[in-house]
């Protein structure tokens, strides 16, 4: 029996009423907490605000954007954001893949390692940042103590701008590696074992199997992991706030932190909103480039 596109299949009539109801809570949540603030941010980015009561008092066109783009701290934050993204991709994706491959081998201690990695993922970002803050402390921190044990000089982990960026990335990688690792592990376990057997028969060694079979078949999960890491890096805020507060001299401040500082420290909602919209645009551009670069011909 064939139903034309506008005829409702009688067995599915009930779904028509229940379906929208079922998605209503999620749709409402999305509208209230995502789309509404985004809409307000976009509107605010074109407005001027009364500095005393923070109420909008007129339209300034692209004035906020011009002001933000001309601001050297925004320019610095833009480049720092890109550096965070690049570093986090370079650190998290290969490490998560390596860990997933190790866990997939089901060696002794695998369950413990998996628990530890997921424990870090489940921990609060603020708590993790505080723990690492203690680790990075000069003289009394764990890392410095280890350095001293080996007779190495004390390091300015959070007081040197370049080193602080690396320290923030390491802390975030430690905390966030679990999710991409889980995605990669799931994808690894979904590769049919007979493909590797066929590759063995075809004369492939371990490296060939990884490079020619595993990696291409992990492509969808790698792309997903890459997107997630890119977005997480762009939104990076709590570790910066707790470990360095954007310092020293704004060298660890990314656009997210710049927006926060504009909105809550400098009482400039217009430029804050403009910088948020620019961060969003930057994220869209980067993920589109990634999606195009990683597009697959095989449909996998």
């Amino acid at each position: 029996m064939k139903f034309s596109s506008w005829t409702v299949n009688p067995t599915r009539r009930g779904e028509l009423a229940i379906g929208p109801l079922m998605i209503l809570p999620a749709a409402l949540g999305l509208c209230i907490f995502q789309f509404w603030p985004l809409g307000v941010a976009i509107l605010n980015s074109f407005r001027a605000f009364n500095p005393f009561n923070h109420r909008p008092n007129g339209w300034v066109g692209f004035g906020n954007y011009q002001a933000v783009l001309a601001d050297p701290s925004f320019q610095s934050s833009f480049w720092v954001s890109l550096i965070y993204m690049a570093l986090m991709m370079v650190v998290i994706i290969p490490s998560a893949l390596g860990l997933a491959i190790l866990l997939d081998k089901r060696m002794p201690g695998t369950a413990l390692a998996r628990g530890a990695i997921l424990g870090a993922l489940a921990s609060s970002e603020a708590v993790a940042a505080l723990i690492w803050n203690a680790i990075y402390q000069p003289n009394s921190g764990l890392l410095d103590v280890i350095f001293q044990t080996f007779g190495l000089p004390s390091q300015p982990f959070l007081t040197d701008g370049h080193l602080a960026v690396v320290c923030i990335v390491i802390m975030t990688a430690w905390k966030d590696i679990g999710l991409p690792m889980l995605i990669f592990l799931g994808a690894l376990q979904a590769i049919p074992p007979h493909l590797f057997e066929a590759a063995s028969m075809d004369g492939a060694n371990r490296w060939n199997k990884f490079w020619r079979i595993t990696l291409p078949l992990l492509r969808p999960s790698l792309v997903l992991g890459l997107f997630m890491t890119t977005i997480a890096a762009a939104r990076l805020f709590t570790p910066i706030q707790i470990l360095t507060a954007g310092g020293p001299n704004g060298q660890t401040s990314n656009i997210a932190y710049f927006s926060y500082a504009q909105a809550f420290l400098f009482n400039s909602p217009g430029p804050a909103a403009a910088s948020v919209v620019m961060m969003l645009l930057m994220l869209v551009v980067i993920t589109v480039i990634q999606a195009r670069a990683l597009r697959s011909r095989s449909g996998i």
Partner: protein
Amino acid sequence: MASVQMRKVIKNFAGAEVLKGVDFDIVDGEFLSLVGPSGCGKSTLLRMIAGLEDITGGEIHIAGQVVNGLAAKDRDIAMVFQNYALYPHMTVRENLSFALEMRGEFKAHIEKQVVYAAGILGLDQLLNRYPRQLSGGQQQRVAMGRAIVRNPQVFLFDEPLSNLDAKLRVQMRTEIKDLHERLKTTTIYVTHDQIEAMTMADRIVVMRLGVVEQIGTPLELYDHPANAFVGTFIGSPSMNLLRGRLVGGDKGLVFEHGGGQSMPLGAALSSVAPGTEVDLGIRPEHLTVGDTGFAARVVVVEPTGAETQVVADIDGQRVTAIVKDRVSIVRGDLIHLAPDTTRVHCFDAGTGQRLP
């Protein structure tokens, strides 16, 4: 091409012995089928030949060389897997060339081999497609092509047709047989479908519970099964087994069925001692519906067009008879089934072994 020998091959999985000293030879260029019910160890044995499973005991020789310690890639063997195991992210061309690339062959040679294999299997138009864009039969052909391009010493097939529909299975059966006739590469073919084994193989190895029950040509197995298991496993519909006793009579032995009916066997089975408890094996096509023989009540009549299968009940025991002519038998009819006594088989009721 190469010969393959099994020498007391044993396989244990976590203490359970799944192959219990398998011993047989495959001659150069032969098409040998390993057949048996699920769990008989046939696929395990094939995977051991391939190098995908360790050998617990015994030796496997390929082309005179013991390969127990040799990695799969060094055995010069190609395998066609049950689910084809095509690389889903590679085109047909890439799937076919992968093994040759791994061997470090020159591009020109790879292309030549790919075109050769594609030509043999009719894949010429499909070389740039991905596996998901192919039908089951086409995927099956690519899997075979992947084996052919390597020109290996031995082909292994692990139930390659079980994922295909009935019509395609018959077609591919013919293609594989034809391929073997053309290439004459030593082939070991695992299947649980005895029809596949019968129609394709030069010789068949029947296995059960990790043991070889019988080795022989299809017709040897059909005409002279070594035991009741082989007798009932080979042939479709299965051989009928009637449990009873052989007693002496004026004109030779008489088979006394457990249900009370008896059947003079004439000169047949004269070397079997009277009094022996036996299973009398009668192939369905060797039972004739007529006025004499075992009285039986018809249970089901299954016309297939070319013949009719009649399932009947002889004193509580179901038997199947094949009738070539059109019959007007219906359920509940009382008929008489006379076996061709010159073609009956006799198995010891206790051991199942053939008598005499």
